């Protein structure tokens, strides 16, 4: 449930554009990524139980690998 000042139709405007993500191993860590046009990947989510991995900028959501 959303609690925001932005109207719902703007937040959810292009809901159908969410593309398929895939999982791969990057620097020994499991990550969920979105493939980009130039053969690179954009990190969507880091899958790890080590909390310190989440402080590493190369694994932050949105990072390009």
């Amino acid at each position, binding site marked *: 449930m959303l609690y925001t000042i932005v109207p719902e139709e703007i937040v959810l405007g292009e809901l159908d554009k969410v593309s398929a993500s895939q999982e791969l191993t990057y620097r020994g860590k499991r990550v969920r990524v979105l493939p980009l046009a130039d053969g690179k990947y954009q990190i969507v989510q*880091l899958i790890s139980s080590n909390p310190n991995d989440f402080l590493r900028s190369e694994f932050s959501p949105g990072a390009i690998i």
Partner: protein
Amino acid sequence: MHDVRGGNLVFTEQPASKDNAENIELIQGLGQTQVPSAESNIHAMTIVGQIEGHMILPPQNKTTKYEHIIPQLVAIEQDPKIHGLLLILNTVGGDVEAGLAIAEMVASMSKPAVSLVLGGGHSIGVPIAVAARYSFIAETATMTIHPIRLTGLVISVPQTFDYLDKMQERVVRFVASNSRISTERFRELMFRTGELARDIGTVVVGKEAVNAGLIDSVGGLGEALAKLRSMYRGES
């Protein structure tokens, strides 16, 4: 390497090509060439855009993902090198449960946390802002307090209304127990009419948030860092 000073581009000596590639990546990603790399004994966490929870939001939204924030909070709490957390908010709100989850995590940390509301800390940003042990708001920053609702949905059964009411109560109770504001006063701000053009509720700006008892002080980065430093040194 490019260095922007006072709006003028200053070209300095070209670094090695590996650095150059990194710089291009930084410009594309952050719009700047250098990021500070000095070791810090505090951790600054930014809560920006929409707080993304159970649902992946479409790409036109700038989002803060709670599944990334929560383990970061665990790392901050556990890492002996980190003495405190600076929580910087500029958020339009977002998922109720993700927001409350972040707020509860921050409120239950044993390490000192200071929040700073810059720009806006609206809707579900309000409980996150008050969750820190001490909160600041910039003079120009705003917070919107309004009821939780389902837009575009016809409330057909009384149970739906009860459900919304329960979700809202969770926010009201959390804010009241983590700040100086009472549940009555917070509800009064939430349901006030005639303040917002398209909705019921209230917008509080800077000092007004402090006067309402939501936020502890008006201040900026300097004040927030000084407060955090004095807290982890055990001075306050």
